[in-house]
């Protein structure tokens, strides 16, 4: 029997769980498990009312262990640890049991089976909790400095934003000059500001500030340490290596423009250009648009080049690049501003001038741009025409499938954004990469600029397509997030790390080799060589534990004893 006092809460999650799992039955099945003194169901355990109920029980019933059977710990582990903490219970006496993602949602067709599985899962959680001990988080003082990788508009703005709230910044740019893509832009949508001027303004501001250090031609070559206390090495101009000590790292490495492959919409033919190339031509044009000595009078835009690629394109970009509709429409307005005589035809699939960018579309329409919608299965064909022109044929859905032939001086491919080649950085920072190959945040709503690596943040277009202002917004969000950690002066790391039984350890060195985080080294204790765990470096992955021939290692919070007890709980046959 157990002398523990454990509270067990089984969540309905509205109906997310209780529509499939009989939560009352689960409660009945576990309420007499060893150590359980409170067992309840709750409509929304995570709601304030649910939390207050638990806090009341912990205090009134003097609970020393807590189990919440609800959703994935990814969502609410910290929520309930905080609840425990607020009630005066050690947060590591808490066990989250996932009966939603791993039970109700996966077994919507088998209510009885789901209920049985939930009972087993909750029993496992109770058994683990019976063996928990109070643990204390590892406090690490943070360095009030941030390394920002990439000095495009996002990186530059983030640097200033951080510096504004008293945080020193190292800004590392791979290229010779800071500024990224925006430095190459003239007029930008929707406010008509000049990209180059914006960058100049930001770069001047950065240079003015003593506590922002800008490195150009710099690349990150090494990173050790953990959140709040990173040691990063950068190499500048292929020679000098500089060691930096920072509390957080913001990745703002930007995007590459999609490069159409040979023959994609006639790319490679003279007169077929990408949107970026066209934008450069426009920015430098005064009055008439002249290309290679020839006036451009008829322009055809083909949208979604390199974006929204269907299943037929292998390794295609399934995603929408978000900015291109707006950018192409804006370019066409710019072209008409330069020369109102120019004829422009937009061949699109869905016109995604979202939000207030719809006004750009209205403006373009008013100024005489013509929009033709094509079916993704019948893309426009581009062939060489007479006199150096191009023939574009397209079946226009807006005129009910009429085949339209356009003689164009220029075909502009509205090319999307693709992720930058950054494999080295990915390896060094252990950055998570999504299915679209952009860097991935933990959660777009809960933790939109955080990665699974604590203290390493992402912003701007390295995370996914955005326009300039949106990149800046996300950069400032990353400022808030990193400042939220660094301004406090310390971070608390989870104490769920390996521990050494010094009596059993004979220091064979197996664990040191197995550790991927260089967290294990040798130390002398009373004349005996034993393994030492570096608290800040150990991630609690458990990789060392089965390696040890003497069973001298164990994982706090997930001890072998707890694991075995959980298995016993899972296997118990009584419902």
């Amino acid at each position, binding site marked *: 029997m157990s002398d523990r006092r454990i509270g067990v809460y089984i969540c309905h999650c509205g109906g997310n769980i209780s529509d499939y799992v009989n939560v009352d039955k689960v409660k009945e099945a576990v309420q007499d498990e060893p150590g359980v003194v409170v067992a309840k169901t709750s409509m929304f355990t995570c709601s304030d009312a649910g939390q207050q109920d638990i806090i009341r029980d912990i205090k009134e019933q003097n609970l020393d262990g807590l189990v919440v059977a609800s959703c994935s710990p990814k969502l609410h582990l910290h929520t309930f640890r905080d609840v425990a903490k607020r009630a005066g219970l050690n947060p590591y006496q808490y066990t989250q049991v996932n009966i939603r993602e791993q039970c109700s949602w996966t077994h919507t067709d088998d209510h009885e089976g789901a209920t049985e599985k939930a009972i087993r899962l909750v029993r496992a959680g109770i058994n683990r909790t019976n063996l928990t001990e109070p643990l204390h988080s590892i406090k690490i003082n943070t360095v009030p400095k941030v390394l920002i990788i990439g000095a495009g508009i996002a990186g530059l703005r983030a640097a200033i934003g951080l510096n*504004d709230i008293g945080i020193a910044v190292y800004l590392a740019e791979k290229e010779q000059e800071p500024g990224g893509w925006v430095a190459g832009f003239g007029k930008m949508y929707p406010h008509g500001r000049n990209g180059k001027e914006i960058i100049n303004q930001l770069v001047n501001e950065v240079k003015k500030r003593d506590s922002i250090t800008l490195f150009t031609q710099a690349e990150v070559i090494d990173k050790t340490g953990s959140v709040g206390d990173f040691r990063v090495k950068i190499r500048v101009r292929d020679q000098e290596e500089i060691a930096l000590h920072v509390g957080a790292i913001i990745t703002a490495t930007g995007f590459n423009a999609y490069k159409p492959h040979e023959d994609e919409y006639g790319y490679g033919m003279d007169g077929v250009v990408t949107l970026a190339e066209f934008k450069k031509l426009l920015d430098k044009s005064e009055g008439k648009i002249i290309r290679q000595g020839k006036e451009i009078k008829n322009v055809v835009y083909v949208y979604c080049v390199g974006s929204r690629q269907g299943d037929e394109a292998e390794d295609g970009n399934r995603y929408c690049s978000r900015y291109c509709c707006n950018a192409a429409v804006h370019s066409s307005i710019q072209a008409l501003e330069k020369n109102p005589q120019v004829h422009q035809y937009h061949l699109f699939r869905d016109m995604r001038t979202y939000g207030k960018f719809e006004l750009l579309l209205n403006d373009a329409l008013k100024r005489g741009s013509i929009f033709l919608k094509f079916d993704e299965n019948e893309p426009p064909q581009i062939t060489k025409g007479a006199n150096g022109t191009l023939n574009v044929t397209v079946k226009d*859905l807006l005129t009910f499938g009429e085949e339209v032939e356009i003689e164009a001086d220029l075909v502009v491919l509205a090319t999307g954004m693709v992720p930058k080649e950054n494999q080295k950085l990915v390896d060094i920072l252990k950055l998570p990469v999504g299915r679209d190959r952009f860097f991935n945040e933990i959660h777009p709503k809960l933790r939109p600029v955080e990665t699974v690596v604590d203290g390493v943040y992402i912003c701007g277009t390295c995370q996914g397509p955005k326009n300039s202002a949106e990149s800046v917004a996300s950069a400032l969000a990353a400022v808030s997030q990193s400042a939220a950690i660094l301004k406090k002066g310390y971070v608390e790391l989870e104490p769920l790390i390996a521990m050494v039984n010094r009596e059993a350890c004979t220091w064979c060195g197996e664990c040191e080799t197995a550790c991927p985080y260089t967290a294990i080294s040798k130390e002398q204790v009373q004349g005996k060589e034993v393994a030492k765990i570096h608290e800040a470096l150990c991630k609690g992955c458990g990789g060392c534990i089965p390696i040890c021939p003497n069973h001298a290692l164990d994982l706090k919070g997930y001890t072998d004893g707890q694991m075995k007890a959980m298995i016993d709980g899972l296997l118990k046959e009584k419902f």
Partner: protein
Amino acid sequence: MNYDVLVIGSGIGGMESALKLGDMGYKVLVVEKEASVGGKMILLSKVFPTLDCASCISTPKMASTIHHPNIDVMTYSEVKEIKRNKAGKFEVTVLKKPTFINENLCTGCRECEMNCNVAVPDQFNFDMVARRAAYIAFPQSVPKKAVIEREGTSPCTYTCPAGIKAHGYTALVRGGKYEEAFNLVLENAPLVGSLGRACYAPCEGECARGRLEGPISIRRIKRFVADEYYKDHVQPAYGVSEERKDKKVAVVGSGPAGLTAAFFLARKGYPVTIFEAASEPGGMLRTAIPSYRLPKDVVDRDIRNVTALGVEIKTGVRIDDLNELKDQGYEAIFVASGTHGTRKMEIEGENLGGVISCIDFLREVNLGKDVSLKDKTVVVVGGGNVAIDSARVAVRLGAKKVIVQYRRSRAEMPAHDWEIQAAEDEGIEFEYLSTPVKYTGSGGILAQVESIKMELGEPDAGGRRKPVPVKGSEYRTEVDMVITAIGLEPETKAFQKLLQVNSNETLVVNPETLQTSVPHVFAGGDVVTGPSMIVEAVGQGRKAAFFIDCFLNDESLEGVHAREYEYKMPVVDKDKVIARQQNYRKLIPVANNKTLLSKDLDFTETELPLTEEEARYSAGRCLDCGVCSECQTCVHTCPAKAIDLSMKEEKKVVEVGSVIVSTGFNLFPAKLKPQYGYGKYKNVITGMQMDRLLSPTRPYNTVLRPHDGKVPENIAYVLCTGSRDQAVNNSLCSGVCCMYSVKQNQLIMGALPLADVTVYYIDVRAFGKGYEEFYQQAKDMGANFVKGRIAGIREKDDGNLTLFYEDINNGGKVMEAEHDLVVLSVGLLASPDAKNLFQNASLETDEHFFVKEIDEDISPARTSIEGVFVAGAASGAKDIPDSILHAGAAAAQAAAYVERTRMKK
């Protein structure tokens, strides 16, 4: 308390800004106008493109916001004004609206909600279902505290001189809670049965329903309540108050004022003795009001409500010397001796036998004297209710002819129209613009009335046209009896040596406290007001009891006390009440005051009682003007005793360094597209309503169409409802509707695997990270996407809907399609909330009224006012991920601004 940053609005944007700033160590004040933080996101089902449960994402943020050590949250509060002060900071005035529930005591148990008797459309379910006036916003509310919605005092309750909660008992009757209704009336008046019959019901005159088909029969509902209660309770259910006080109180007069004062004093434990000059108690209830209007057993039963408390009534005792009472040990005296004197006409023959004052006439009849007027002719002089009463009594005593002479015309007659009507029905003749000038007779006995015709001249000071005699129009009537009913006045001569008396014989009192010039003597009722209504006298009686209690407790009667007595919220504007709904179902009042006309008029009660069905139907017509009816049920049922209906608005002024405006958006009102029939066709709903139908806290347990509860099989989505549409002055794209519709498609296909979903679109704007993939997934799951804007919708007899559209992808033919449920994907409009908050600076907005970002390229979230930032959809339609990033940007800059201003110091 001062703060670094004020965050206005606690939607996802506001919470994110506040949390980031709080984490950075800044002190933040969040002001939220609703009763819970969370904004609109918490009301959603799941959110795209990850299909996370909106609750799962919101609730931890909501709980963190409220519990964060650096964040204070004021819910149910509104920022009223922001001014930059000389120090460069912002001075913020916040109004905390009264919740009427002590939040420190409330445990969120919902007892009040479950017992509340008023249902109003639930704004958190977008009016698809009702909620109560006492409510907790939604199951995941943070804080989980109830609030009571009170727009003000309902006009009926507000106007009642006795403060009776007319709206309250009406609401209780509507819910079948008759005993509670009786007890509610008893809280203000012990004479429930008498008021239910003989009250002139000023409440009905104020009833907002009067502007529609006619007022609610509030008085008859009260009578129903009394009848129901008295049927089962021959004696009151209570006895002498447990609280015992030793200071004795004397009440002079057992009319409505005296009885009521005695009742409330006895409830407080005072030993009370009433001295009544007449042989039976009740005052005018007994002696003046004829029993066909107010049966005397009802008066008796009402009086038992008072005597059950131990009040002693000594009848046949006339008090002339108040000092005697003092000498007998009464430490306070309430004089409520009424108006038992009648004014004289001062004309010839007034002292002839057969000329009688109405009061004497009615008293004699009411106290059982055998009076017969068989075959007699009676002239009643006067036009008030007492005149009519006298005339109708005369008829009942067998008079062959009864004539009422009144010196003005019927329009000016003070008697209630229904009384006049009843009198006419009973054959009483009316001679308008006539007044007696002389009574003649022989042997001291009246034989003739000489009257003169009048005409109406110029209006007098009171605005009434003054009657002027027409020379030579005299005429004579042979009569047996004249009953004069030209005005009543108090008989206060005996009190004059002790008390101050006005020229009209009424007593002088402090109108606030009813205290006379002699501190231990209070006075009220008709003896103070002159002839008035029962309910007025009841109100005075209760007021006197309140202040006598204060007096006996040696408390000051001035100032606070006088104001605290009966605090009422301001009366609700009836125009606003009527404007709440576009139209109302017609509910005709229960047939008016049709009387029980027996063949031989006798003294049995004439007014038909309401049947239970009629009473509940009548109560069901109530428009709940004040929203909360003040029925007090929650007060009685709250286990935490947290209800405080006298709570008042609180004003708080704080100084903040920076402001973040995160006031969110308004949904496009779908009614502005009449061709889609929203509000007219029941099976046309908005996207927000569909989100509620799909959410874990959904109003029904499944998706069903509102018209008939059928599970829909073929659902249409109309994208761009109110967006990209210059016809409704909104050319913007709302940025979220495509995606929330796609999300709902997926959820519907999960919830209703057999249902077809068709989306009618212009462009599908799946532009964010993971959105295109999400859209393709919906297509793969089987959602149909049809390019074509819906031109119009028509409803069929079975509630299904025909949609008209141009099928663009298939040759552009104009097509019709039938669906059994239509979801309008309504867009987002600017919320006007923040625009006018700033006093000495202007918060600029764009042409669509969103807060303008003046430097979006470099400093998104920055507004036209230095130090003021905007977060989330307040600056333009944004989805949740974009709002969160934007809120982070606002937080970073607000922090920077706070740092910069600190540095300057």
